């Protein structure tokens, strides 16, 4: 009986891990998110990606041409062209739901790159305009690579919000089941933002 149980346990383990493919995390990113409001409502999300040191080092050996450990305008342009623009095909790893409907992320603005503590940084802004009204609106955002080549971790402590007094805003970070990916194997963290116009 013990042998049968052991066999079943091993069978389950084998099933769990025998998935086929060549895409498991090779790159690790810590993502910092800032929720940005303008005078009409939600304006979008500012992001700061901090890559793991190993990936950063190999990237910089390609793009920091003069090896001065500082990225100049030309080098940032090359990084954008060679190792960022293609992310458009992946929605810049940014997945957004506005009141439950998918918002397609097709472009970003204000892209820049830098180096901090031997780690490569990307900063950019994702426009996502949602006008605030008297009714509460809900926007959910998460950052993950659905191919799982990259493991993106939202940094909870860095979550912040830039807003005026014109809106009532509440937000929290938690696992978002609607964003489960890789055949439901991974449920990423995401931020749920609820806001409306402040009539007081």
């Amino acid at each position, binding site marked *: *009986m013990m042998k*049968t149980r052991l*066999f*079943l346990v*091993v*069978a389950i383990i*084998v*099933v*769990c*891990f*025998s*998935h*086929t*493919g*060549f*895409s*498991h*995390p*090779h*790159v*690790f990113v810590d993502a910092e998110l800032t929720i940005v409001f303008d005078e009409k409502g939600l304006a979008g999300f500012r992001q700061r990606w901090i890559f*793991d*040191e*190993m*990936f950063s*080092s*190999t*990237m910089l*050996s*390609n793009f920091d041409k003069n090896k001065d450990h500082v990225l100049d305008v030309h080098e940032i342009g090359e990084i954008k062209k*060679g*190792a*960022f*623009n*293609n*992310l*458009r*095909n992946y*929605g810049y790893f940014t997945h957004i739901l506005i009141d439950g409907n*998918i918002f*397609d992320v*097709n472009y970003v603005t204000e892209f820049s790159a830098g180096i901090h503590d031997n780690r490569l940084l990307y900063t950019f802004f994702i426009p996502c305009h949602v006008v605030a009204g008297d009714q509460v609106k809900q926007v959910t955002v998460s950052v993950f*690579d*659905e*191919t*799982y*080549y*990259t*493991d993106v*971790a939202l940094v909870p402590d860095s979550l912040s919000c830039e807003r005026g007094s014109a809106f009532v805003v509440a937000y929290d970070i938690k696992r978002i089941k*609607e*964003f*489960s*990916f*890789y*055949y*439901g*194997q*991974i*449920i990423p963290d995401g931020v749920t933002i609820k806001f409306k116009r402040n009539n007081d």
Partner: protein
Amino acid sequence: MVKSYQMASRLSSSGTMTRIIALSLLFCVLLSSPVLAAQNPFFSGGQDEQKTEEEITNRQEEQKEKKENSCPRLLQTVFSMLSVWQKKLRGHLTQVSRDISENPWGHSFLLFLILSFVYGVIHALGPGHGKSIVFSYFLSRPGRYVHGVLMGNLITFVHVFSAVVIVLGFYVALKTAGLTSFEDVRGILEKISYAFLMVLGLFLVLYRVHELKTGTLTNVQQYKTAETDFRHLALVALATGLVPCPGAALILLFTITLDILIPGLIAMVCIALGMGLTTTFFALFSIASRNTIFRVTVRSQKIFALSSAALSLIGAFAITIIGSLLFFSQL
């Protein structure tokens, strides 16, 4: 009827019926396992053109469908843990590599090799690294445990060696240690590997049909003396492992940038051994599964012939299907 009843009694009393049910489920799940292949999303892989709006919308629709699939909570937790461990290990490897660059053959060197081995074990637990292929191969053909160890390690050594050759090739030829060149070559090798697997799978299906006709896999006496064809085993391992491992490549590239190439190359062996350990486990389990079915069914020639034929064809078809899906996902 009486014979069937006696057979069923024997099976259930020994608990083997449960094993057979578990195995049947296992094979079904194996064949329905997700087949995924991913390029490095940061690079275009030689494709300068961006996808059209329609292609992006289609991708999002596909993503929506995928989200509807669920997965046991335990598995979600395990995958999440694996990812965290890999991230921590990579962090430790980075730190230790820097120590080596200051003191090449000190304690850090030994730690670097141990961490590389552990990284290999955990890294191979993630999707990929030929676990489905090795499992399917030994499902399709009886094999000894030593064959499982051989194939499990052959796949991962080719997988890592392929990455080493590309990285060193570019380093020697162009004096650069870049990821973009590696990714370009990886894209090409992926297509070759998957096409190769698809063709090999088809060949194995035909070969198994031939073996079934001649009774090699359905006659008990012939089955007992059937030997593994090393050429087939090596070809499947080569086709599977041909895709270079980006995880290993990243570590080697990093050691090159730190000017510690020799420790980096030794670490590649440790990573391959670690991955080999994980892949071998799947090979051994597949061999044990087939052996269990042999022991359970050998008393009845008819049931044995039927189950052996089914397993042989399922295994060979699985390799064909996996190769085809991976190949066409690349087009």
